[in-house]
């Protein structure tokens, strides 16, 4: 029962995506092409975020802590 409602909700969500992004008026092969391209772009964004964001955060943290550390050594 719950699974059916979840599936209904997702199919409604997919319908909303289709009418907002003009996919509802495209032919099926164009829809598949558009969905493929969009999913590829999203996958690439997710992968890049997964690989690079922790490294960038660590580098930024080190950079700022070095500045604060520099201040504190001057103060000393």
């Amino acid at each position, binding site marked *: 029962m719950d699974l059916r409602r979840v599936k209904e909700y997702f199919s409604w969500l997919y319908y*909303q995506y*289709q*009418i*907002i*992004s*003009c*996919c*509802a*008026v*495209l*032919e099926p092969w*164009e829809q598949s092409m*558009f969905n493929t391209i969009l999913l590829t772009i999203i996958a690439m964004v997710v992968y890049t975020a997964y690989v690079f964001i922790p490294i960038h955060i660590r580098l930024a943290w080190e950079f700022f802590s070095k500045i604060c550390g520099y201040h504190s050594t001057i103060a000393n």
Partner: protein
Amino acid sequence: MEIDVVQWSSAEQSQGREPKQNGKPHFYDKLIVESFEEAPLHVVVFTYMAYGIGTLFGYLRDFLRNWGIEKCNAAVERKEQKDFVPLYQDFENFYTRNLYMRIRDNWNRPICSAPGPLFDVMERVSDDYNWTFRFTGRIIKDVINMGSYNFLGLADKYDESMKTIKDVLEVYGTGVASTRHEMGTLDKHKELEDLVAKFLNVEAAMVFGMGFATNSMNIPALVGKGCLILSDELNHTSLVLGARLSGATIRVFKHNNTQSLEKLLRDAVIYGQPRTRRAWKKILILVEGTYSMEGSIVHLPQILALKKKYKAYLYIDEAHSIGAVGPTGRGVTEFFGLDPHEVDVLMGTFTKSFGASGGYIAGRKDLVDYLRVHSHSAVYATSMSPPIAEQIIRSLKFIMGLDGTTQGLQRVQQLAKNTRYFRQRLQEMGFIIYGNENASVVPLLLYMPGKVAAFARHMLQEKKIGVVVVGFPATPLAEARARFCVSASHTREMLDTVLEALDETGDLLRLKYSRHKKSARPELYDETSFELED
């Protein structure tokens, strides 16, 4: 935008109103309530994004068609013309080929009954994505009609009151086979013209066979080179065509905006014609009574004040407002309580509220006499057909009460009631509605092209309601809308059915963009729980 209007005195009395003493001032104490709400930002962004995706796919399909990978069903030039100036490369043809064709099944739907409150639609399907259609043979019966301009419900099947039309058909036949100047002026036309003049409370009127041609053929007869035409931004194509054909200089003012019009008038009077600085021969202001795409009513008192101050002429096209606006259906002049003699040219059509076809121009007797001689339509176009003239005579007598009943007046009042009810309920539901609260044409904004197609198909196939959706180029690109025409022959149950269907469709497609608070009146909602949206 709310505007307070100062009192206007009117010594004229139109039929059907309670008699007032001559000379007593008539106060227009209603506020003009119009709303043109803007869409939320995310809606506009999504709309442009959807058009962007559609354009990209359009380029892709054009590329495939050009290189022969896909069969081309659209219009192309012949092989011998390939090196000439291209015919089909501008944006409008691109839009038609790639965007309009995909959702084309929502327009030009054939119907097979009279356009009354309920009608029958022929079912058609397409096998190749709307390039060709075929009829399945089935008929979708009893579809609620929210698209026909049937404001007073006079465009319906034959009933006993139409007996006079049958008699006229027997005596006069169907065709006139001549123009007004030659042998085409019948006594029916004279009777009709006298009746129209009496209805509008003016000196004289002239009728023409076609409403569009009334505008496009008579404006060139009234103005010419050396004259100035100030026309509203959103005027109908017939007015624009007539203005261009006349050869006069055309300047456009912002829609219903009196400040913009005043600025143009001042510049015209101060600076005169462009190079020679001579005074303009005539300045003609072209407006419409009710604008059908926006649902707005013209701000007539302010425009009349401007007209008197700057000595210009006023031409009002009352195609959608005659018979539908005003306490007894006499049009915008009666709606504002003004004297129809103050407007120079009153034009209207018989297509919308009278269930016939054709147009009229009314005003002072010397104006109408001039048009009888000089109008292009009178010289070259066939005059109105006699059964249609009789239908208009019948409708006019019905509305004025000359047939002995008060049904005509009741219908006008029923239309006003239906309009206010429909608009109020739609605003409460949270849709964005444009226009004046008294205009019987109700545009409901849809914005996104995918939703436009889904809305029209869903309403016809699931809910059996026929609606008209409008997109580019009739409206701006980002403001696609559905346009409802409320009619006096819609009963309360029909309107409630339509409103319920709109409620469900609005929730399914998420169309309720309005940011105004909904009024909490429990008896109008059937639901038992109150959930505040967004």
